[in-house]
């Protein structure tokens, strides 16, 4: 275990360090903004499923643009691999591209890295790095995130580390190969160009920074920044009580007859160091939800970062006190050629497991379980003679905390993504959204109530449409904490009513829908915190007024008796006292 603190005593003055840190953050954010504003695909520009970073000459991340939290630390393996495989071959004006998790330290094939070394006065001083989730990289399903893939060869185009530009000269063959292998070349090439533009600006701004502070000062600041982040993280970790905190959780399983997929995490806190062990977690599966180790690491970093009170810089020093074990051959560290296109669901679930363990260590800093990662419906077909692929991320609701009810209409902690406006969907696709609303009585009961589930209805306005759904948390819905109840389970239904058909949580093959069919998805509700009968009756009444809880649930679960009157809803204090005193 690694608990040796760095030597105290900064080598550069704290104010110069703070100024350089500001400059680095500003550059990383600027790269992220350039990609957001020039990208083509909605997954990049609306869902912001991409990240940018500035690294030092060793490839260690110094600052990361704040976009997708689950990308924290995502450049570590990629940069280590790049430095190793390209030793002696990195030249000014080069631009590297890759995506493969096994050949290049990537995450899954849709995440394409574009990385530029930054030379100042002939010597390598840093790297401008970007990674973006592309709309499609080929493979057996549109979107390249098939749950049903059995190995990575079915998932699309694999790119080892290649030079997209070689000493300033573009390599058109790579663009041509990519364009020939993806379903939507305009969007993919457009997004790649956005990444290239960001790297170019990163190089320019980095040079301005070096010119202003001087090479030696900047180098010293980089080293100190890592030490500083480590000190900050250690100071916080040291306050968490020592011990081993275990948590087990389960993904429903794959397809029509799902077998549960268990997760097991042990978080050991010793002094200022943290060790996270995934031993006991399911073996890798013959489906696209395996999480390559870089993604497992990112899930651990993001969860730990979330329980720190300090504003820790997104630099590699923060990760130094953290060690991670995930046995090879598990879903958390798959061996090639395991498929991993839809590994998002696994990463989100690993973060939720981390929170389950941390809830025992720092109960006031963690919420009960939420709806989990995004539900990813993929609806494709032909409309007015053109192929369309509609994908969006449906999120989300959170569990309750020690101090307040679960938040509704919020992204998962791992992916700060947006919804897609209903009006934009209807203007572009043969779909009509008929409902987008909260579901009453769906929040886990508790002293603090879990956030309500939300429902989204899609009316299909074209013939022979194909639907796949990646969702989570049906048989094993979001857990409550400290006596709080579970949230309601998620569900996907075709044509709700007497003729309805229920879809699997993780569909292994597409379902065909006809014009006029209705696809309904309901995400899970958030878990509650503390016993329901300790909830303030006034809050229960407010929930009923707002339509979040019914009078029946108020009585049966919260044990608060409410009566509807002309002037509103009143608490029957006496009846409530009697009902709450009843131990049964």
């Amino acid at each position, binding site marked *: 275990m690694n608990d040796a603190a760095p030597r105290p005593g900064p080598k550069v003055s704290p104010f110069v*360090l703070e*100024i350089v840190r500001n400059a680095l953050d500003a550059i990383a954010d600027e790269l992220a903004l350039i990609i957001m504003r020039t990208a083509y695909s909605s997954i990049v520009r609306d869902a912001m499923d991409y990240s940018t970073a500035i690294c030092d000459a060793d490839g260690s991340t110094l600052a990361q643009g*704040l976009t997708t939290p689950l990308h924290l630390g995502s450049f570590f393996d990629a940069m280590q691999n790049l430095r190793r495989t390209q030793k002696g071959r990195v030249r000014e004006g080069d631009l590297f591209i890759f995506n493969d998790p096994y050949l290049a330290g990537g995450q899954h094939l849709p995440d394409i890295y574009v990385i530029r070394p930054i030379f100042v006065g002939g010597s390598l001083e840093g790297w401008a790095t970007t990674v973006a989730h592309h709309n499609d990289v080929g493979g057996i399903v549109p979107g390249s995130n098939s749950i049903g893939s059995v190995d990575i060869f079915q998932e699309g185009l694999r790119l080892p580390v290649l030079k997209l530009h070689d000493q300033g000269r573009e390599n058109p063959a790579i663009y041509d190969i990519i364009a020939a292998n993806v379903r939507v070349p305009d969007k993919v090439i457009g997004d790649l160009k956005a990444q290239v533009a960001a790297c170019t600006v990163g190089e320019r701004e980095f040079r301005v920074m070096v010119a202003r502070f001087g090479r030696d000062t900047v180098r010293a600041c980089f080293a100190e920044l890592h030490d500083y982040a480590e000190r900050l993280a250690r100071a916080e970790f040291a306050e968490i009580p020592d011990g081993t905190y275990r948590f087990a959780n389960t993904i429903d399983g794959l397809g029509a007859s799902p077998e549960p997929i268990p997760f097991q995490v042990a978080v050991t806190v010793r002094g200022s160091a943290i060790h996270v062990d995934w031993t006991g977690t399911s073996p890798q599966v013959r489906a696209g939800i395996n999480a390559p180790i870089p993604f497992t690491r990112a899930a651990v970093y993001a969860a730990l970062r979330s329980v720190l009170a300090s504003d820790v810089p997104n630099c590699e020093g923060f990760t130094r006190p953290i060690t991670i074990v995930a046995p090879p051959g598990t879903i958390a560290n798959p061996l090639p050629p395991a498929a991993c296109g839809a590994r998002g669901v696994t990463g989100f679930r690993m973060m939720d497991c981390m929170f389950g363990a941390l809830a025992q260590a720092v109960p006031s800093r963690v919420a009960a379980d939420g709806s989990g990662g995004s539900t990813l419906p993929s609806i494709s077909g032909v409309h007015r003679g053109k192929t369309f692929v509609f994908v969006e991320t449906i999120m989300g609701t959170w569990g309750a905390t020690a101090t307040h009810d679960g938040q509704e209409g919020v992204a998962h902690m791992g992916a700060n993504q947006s919804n897609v406006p209903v009006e934009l969907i209807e*203007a572009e696709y043969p779909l009509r959204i008929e409902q987008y609303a909260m579901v009453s009585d769906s929040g886990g009961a508790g002293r603090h109530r879990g956030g309500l589930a939300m429902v989204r209805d899609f009316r299909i306005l074209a013939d022979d449409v194909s639907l796949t759904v990646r969702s989570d948390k049906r048989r094993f819905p979001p857990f409550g904490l400290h006596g709080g109840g579970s949230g309601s389970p998620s569900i996907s239904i075709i044509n709700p009513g007497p003729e309805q058909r229920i879809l699997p949580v993780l569909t292994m093959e597409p379902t065909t829908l006809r014009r006029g069919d209705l696809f309904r998805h309901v995400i899970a509700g958030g878990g509650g915190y503390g016993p329901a009968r300790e909830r303030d009756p006034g809050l229960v009444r407010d929930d009923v007024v707002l339509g979040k809880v019914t009078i029946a649930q108020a009585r049966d679960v919260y044990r608060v008796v409410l009566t509807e009157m002309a002037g509103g809803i009143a608490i029957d204090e006496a009846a409530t006292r009697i009902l709450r005193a009843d131990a049964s």
Partner: protein
Amino acid sequence: MVDPSCPTRKLRIAADIGGTFTDIALMRDDGGVITRKAASTPDDYARGVVRGIRELMAAQGLPLSAIGDVLHGCTIATNTILERKGARTALITTRGFRDVLEFRRIRVPRLYDPLYVKPAPLVPRNLRLEVTERLDATGSVVQPLDEADVAGTIAVLEREAVEAVAVCFLHAYANAAHEQRVGDLLRARFPEMFVTLSSDILPEIREYERTSTAVINAYIGPIVSRYVRALDAALHDAGIDGRLLMMQSSGGILDAARVAEVPARIIECGPAAGVIGAMRQAGFCGERNVITLDMGGTTAKASLIENGAITRTDEYEVAGGISLSSRLVKGGGCALKLPVIDISEVGAGGGSIVWFDRGGALKVGPRSAGATPGPACYDAGGSEATVTDANVVLGFINPTALAGGTMPIRADLSHDITRTRVAEPLGLGLHEAAWSVHAVASANMMRAVKAVSTYRGRNPAEFSLMAFGGNGGIFAVELARQLQIRRIVVPPGAGVFSAIGLGLADIAFGRARAVLTRTDRIDAAALNTSLRTMETDVVGTLGSAEAQVRRTAMMRYAGQAFELSVPLPDHDLGLGDLAALPRAFDAEHERNYGHVLADAEGVEIIAVEVTATAVVAPMKPPWLPVTAASGQPDRHAFFGPEIGTCETPVVHRRNLDTQAAAGPIIIEEYEGTTIVPPDARVRLDAQDDIVIELAA
């Protein structure tokens, strides 16, 4: 002085209400500006305004009847939302969609924070009422409006004593008929009700942003209307019979009665007035490209003036906290998609508190000591080191009194607190420690400037810095150095610059309409009719015959999500004009993002906007008549570890010459202090601006 007996022309007077002070500025015909600070009166702001005007006019020996236009900026709209003191508001929307307002766009403003709590929506769920109706994206009726449902909602409005209603139906930007019918039914039943239709205030696609904008307007509507009526009446009672004009967030002023109909347009009017003042002043002194820095007690705000014009944004959130310079993290406030001057803000002001985080890093702000207790030197119990205390230690701020001698301070308290709270923990000398605070505060401000410049593809080195606000002149040089800016301008009246900006603003009003079509598929005849209708509308609203009209198109590459604004010709668009638009967009894209998409699938027009402007402001640069320029003794000032301490002359703006003088010089005025370090040169230009030039 104007002869009161024969006021050939009525005078303009500006009143800008801030949290503590109401700044009044009287604009004389010769450009002379008389200013006065009066205490704000939050229980009834109109009283403070009228009192300030009375005092100023009395001091000048002028009757109130000499006043023509009253130009006004206030914080009432923003505060109503921040303090949640708006009208009891309901929302009527399409069945199945009442939670759109609460879901927002799902993204949260803070990453890695499981304890984040979303602000409550302005309309609670039980007042978000659904009616059966449905349009599709082309505006065709899928399901007709169910008037029985509307009758049901009217009963609820009555029972719940609702004062204001926003109506927002899906796709109402494409067909307003259902919203208009509901509006008619509401107005017939409740003639006094404040009703906002989303298709009136923001006929643009994206349901959350349109709903939120309509809700904000309804929520503040009754409060702003009452306020405007009360102020108008108070001014009239005082014998001022000119027009009352108010600043909009977009930087144009507008008749107060019109503002009362669209109050959401004045949300950010205070900072906007300062930027407008800077734009005008920059024009007077021949600067085309300027970055503005408005630094007060708690925040620093930056904005960009390019080719003599302000820059606007419509990605704005009300009450989302300080709008941190990074635009990546959003979702903290209520979306308001109306044009706002693009202003970026950071929590760095004179009162910002100095602290160390757990990794030992020196931090400045965003927490502020405010006006009370204020910095330690105020001797009002302030027990934490602030930026102002550091500036006292450095010798930048007068050691005995602020505000031209009117507010005594104790420098020894600044020294003590900076020594114990900053120097000793850092193991630095007192001056070096204070310098660290100064430099870190500047670095924070740099983020705000970058957000409006480099983040939008502009290089700050190609701009001048115009600094105002009480602390702008103290930080301007250090900030400029960090951004490689060479010239700094500190305008006259920098401490009351928002009031001066009000006096220099034009009357303006604009409207936008959704188009959402590729340039090569546009029905030119329909677009031209639409533009002409909008033009008639905005010119009519302006109420001025000499309106100048500007047309612009919001455009993007087909498939992108973010638009850029491209000017349109002021005549009917022909085929040639439409064909030229994609190239004009390419040029704008290149300028913002550094590249053009040669293989794009065409260029789309998302919306068109028509703005009418009428020039009413005096065309002479403002200058401040001086009553007395008191001499000050030289003092020691510390200009960083490389330069060290220098004996520095302290002068008044009037003592500067048009010939550049070498620093170090400190310029002290009633409105604020300006620092010129030894390696810079300073002069006064023809418009009374302090101009500082830095060596390359």
